[in-house]
């Protein structure tokens, strides 16, 4: 856990720098700065250390994307995009073999020009204007750029994905410990102690839920829930498969909260849970993640929050849904944090927006803290849902919006 926090703190420092860059980037850039050194052979002029390319979007008689220069010398190249009148084009990208190097979104007629800067080596690139006719134009870079000191975006992203895997294993191992504690408490017959252990174990699962979703153990068919590890650990009354019977976290939850007593069945549920989580730890060690898996996983956790936690469906007896909510969000945040160094290079604005929206979700959730309640949040009863679910739901929706775009960006990063 502690090693992870170091990484996140590092990412946050980078973030501050990015925010400053983004602010500069959105400032309109004068097209014909006096300091411009004229480019040879129609090549983009270099100002302030970067070649300047002006891209204009127009909509009169077909949506067109026009660059004032389609060649530039190797090194930093700044693309300044102005949407004069195109309603169809909202996004401009620079690509290399279908990989996104840099881009600008949220373009609309009437808004000030916006810019992005990429460092390019000699070669052929594609200026991609979604919705324009034609959508792609060849952009040529001549000469050779100094090697980038920080490594390619793809390298950063792949390193992040690898580190994330280590984090996931750590969470699974911590879960195994917490579930063993739950089993011990259940075996002791102390309902209150067992409740406390339950609430402590839940977040570990909720943080990495999206990574193990639908995992089927070897030797079982895909439509047999008896071999579905995620199902065995986390099944709920609402998705109960009668053939398999009830087991896992929520069977324990029901006995502790609804029935208020520990029976021999409860002890069996806790023992099975401990066994299955042990298997899960081994499974998790074998997982390999691609950068887009982190992004899709984070998005899936937010989907869980929106459709399972805010509705109060997950913890139907203990009403500790907000405990799970916080863990889902934390899991999404961790996955995102490992992508941040790479994402920053592709789309710093998008990265910033996600960070801001995570902050807003945290703030909305903080309003519902209750130190005296199990899990540390207001019990998510029908009455409390009625009062607070709209605010939470809309904060999560605002986070889902930028988050949905990340997988595409990191999957195509170079």
């Amino acid at each position, binding site marked *: 856990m502690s090693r992870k926090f170091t990484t996140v703190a590092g990412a946050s420092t980078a973030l501050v720098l990015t925010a400053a860059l983004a602010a500069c980037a959105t400032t309109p850039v004068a097209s014909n700065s006096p300091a411009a050194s004229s480019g040879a052979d129609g090549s983009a002029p270099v100002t302030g250390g970067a070649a300047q390319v002006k891209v204009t979007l127009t*909509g*009169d008689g077909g949506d067109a994307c026009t660059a004032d220069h389609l060649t530039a010398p190797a090194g930093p190249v700044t693309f300044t995009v102005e*949407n*004069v*009148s*195109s*309603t*169809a084009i*909202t996004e401009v990208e620079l690509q290399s073999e*279908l990989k996104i190097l840099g881009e600008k979104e*949220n373009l*609309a*007629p*009437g*808004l000030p020009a916006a810019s992005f800067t990429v460092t390019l080596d000699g070669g052929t690139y*594609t200026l*991609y204007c*979604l*919705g324009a006719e034609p*959508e*792609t134009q060849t952009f040529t870079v001549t000469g050779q750029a100094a090697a980038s000191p920080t490594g390619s975006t793809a390298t950063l992203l792949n390193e992040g994905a690898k580190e994330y895997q280590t984090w996931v294993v750590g969470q699974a191992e911590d879960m195994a410990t917490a579930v063993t504690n739950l089993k011990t408490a259940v075996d002791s017959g102390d309902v209150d102690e067992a409740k406390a252990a339950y609430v402590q174990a839940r977040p570990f699962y909720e943080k990495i839920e999206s990574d193990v979703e639908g995992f089927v153990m070897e030797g079982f068919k895909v439509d047999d829930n008896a071999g579905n590890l995620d199902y065995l650990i986390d099944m709920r009354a609402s998705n109960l498969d009668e053939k398999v019977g009830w087991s896992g976290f929520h069977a324990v939850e029901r006995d502790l909260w609804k029935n208020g007593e520990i029976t021999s069945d409860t002890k069996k549920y806790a023992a099975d849970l401990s066994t299955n989580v042990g298997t899960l730890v081994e499974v998790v060690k074998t997982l390999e993640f691609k950068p*887009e898996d982190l*992004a*899709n996983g984070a998005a899936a956790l937010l989907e869980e929050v929106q459709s399972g936690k805010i509705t109060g469906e997950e913890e139907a007896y203990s009403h500790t849904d907000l405990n799970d909510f916080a863990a889902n969000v934390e899991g999404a945040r961790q996955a995102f944090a490992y992508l941040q160094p790479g994402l920053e290079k592709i789309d710093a604005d998008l990265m910033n*927006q996600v960070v*801001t*929206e995570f902050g*807003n979700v945290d703030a909305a959730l903080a309003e519902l803290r209750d130190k005296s309640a199990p899990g540390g949040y207001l019990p998510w009863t029908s009455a409390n849902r009625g009062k607070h679910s709209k605010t939470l739901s*809309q904060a999560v*929706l*605002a986070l*889902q*919006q*930028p988050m*949905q*775009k990340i*997988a*595409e960006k990191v*999957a*195509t990063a170079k």
Partner: protein
Amino acid sequence: MTQNRTPPPAASGPSRRRLLAGGAAAAAAGATVGAGVTAGLLTGATQPATTPTSASTSATDEVDLTRIVPFYDQTHQAGIRTPPQRHSVFMTFNLNAGTDAQDLQVLLARWSAAIAQLTQGKTIGTVEPSRPDAVGTDTGEAYGLAPASLTVTVGLGPGVFDDRYGLAAKRPALLADLPRIPGDVLQAGLTGGDLSLQACADDPQVAYHAVRNLARMVTTTAHTHWVVLGFGRASAGPGQETPRNLMGFKDGTRNVAGDDDYDRFVWLGEDAGWMAGGTYQVVRKITMTIETWDFDRISDQQRIFGRTKDEGAPLTGTAEFDTPDFAARGDGGYVIDQASHIALAAPENNAGVKILRRGYNFTDGLNDQGLLDAGLLFISYQNDPQHFIDLQNRLGRFDLLNEYIRHVGSGIFAIPPGPPTGSYIGQALFA
């Protein structure tokens, strides 16, 4: 790397949209032979893109699904003087905490560009992105549907001009929360809002798609507040037959009409500064106690409205457009009850004031009692909200109709003028 984001424009070839619209029209034309009723619903007209305000809509009140209402360069926003389409979705939004003027600026610019796309029957972006990890920009349910005269009218609530965005100096002079009006039983969840979208179209799926996608693209800046799905327009434009509200009576017989009326009662003049060419929108969600109304005897229903139910004639006349004679007396007093709906609302009894009514019927299914939950989504446009306030104060106090209606939702919004090409709704706010 083709994105195939928009269907080809109608003019350039036989797109699916055009075929669908044409097919529907052909079906209607065929049906006309056997059943004259159908002719009122769909038409065989094939001419595209007609300016709505100049469209010579025939008295048979036809729908041409291929019609496009222009968005840019119209002085006024569409959806106000546009002949009322058959369906509407009205949604309000509140701006998210922590957003700033630049967020609002981007929202209005993105909305404007997207509305321009949508009104032409185009998507706002890719439905099926080529990259496997991408999420579609447009949700797709209107892909291939005709433009259906879609209009989306954008309104700015009083909250836009409070201290959050530094726009207090730009506050439209007459924009303020409506005062409490007698008879109001407003619910907080159906009242107010920082932004409004009024989407109207002759195809309900087109209107719904527009609002859904506009809401979806701005979740980081604004969140949904309340919504009403309207059907069966409850007002008429020029050439349209006066439609009926859910009480079965014609509604909007003496509406604002003609350039003089619009200039006098609806549009803001040059003295309104950046709002010149704009107007104010008042929205009221009015539920009706429909079952109770349906039990009421016809003579009482007609006394309450002041009109006959069938023809819609004032009780002092024989035809719908006869001018009511509020002074006429019969055996039992005034022929048109002084507390009837038309007597209280008539311009001659309100210092000549008119407001443009452009409402829709709505239903929300059943209420807690198992009764029909339905009524009127009242939308009015006026260049002075006080005109509405004065009228509704009279109606709220005395209207015989009050026994059968409840005002449960309310909102007021400034409607900026229409944007020129290359601009967006409300751009003057950020100048």
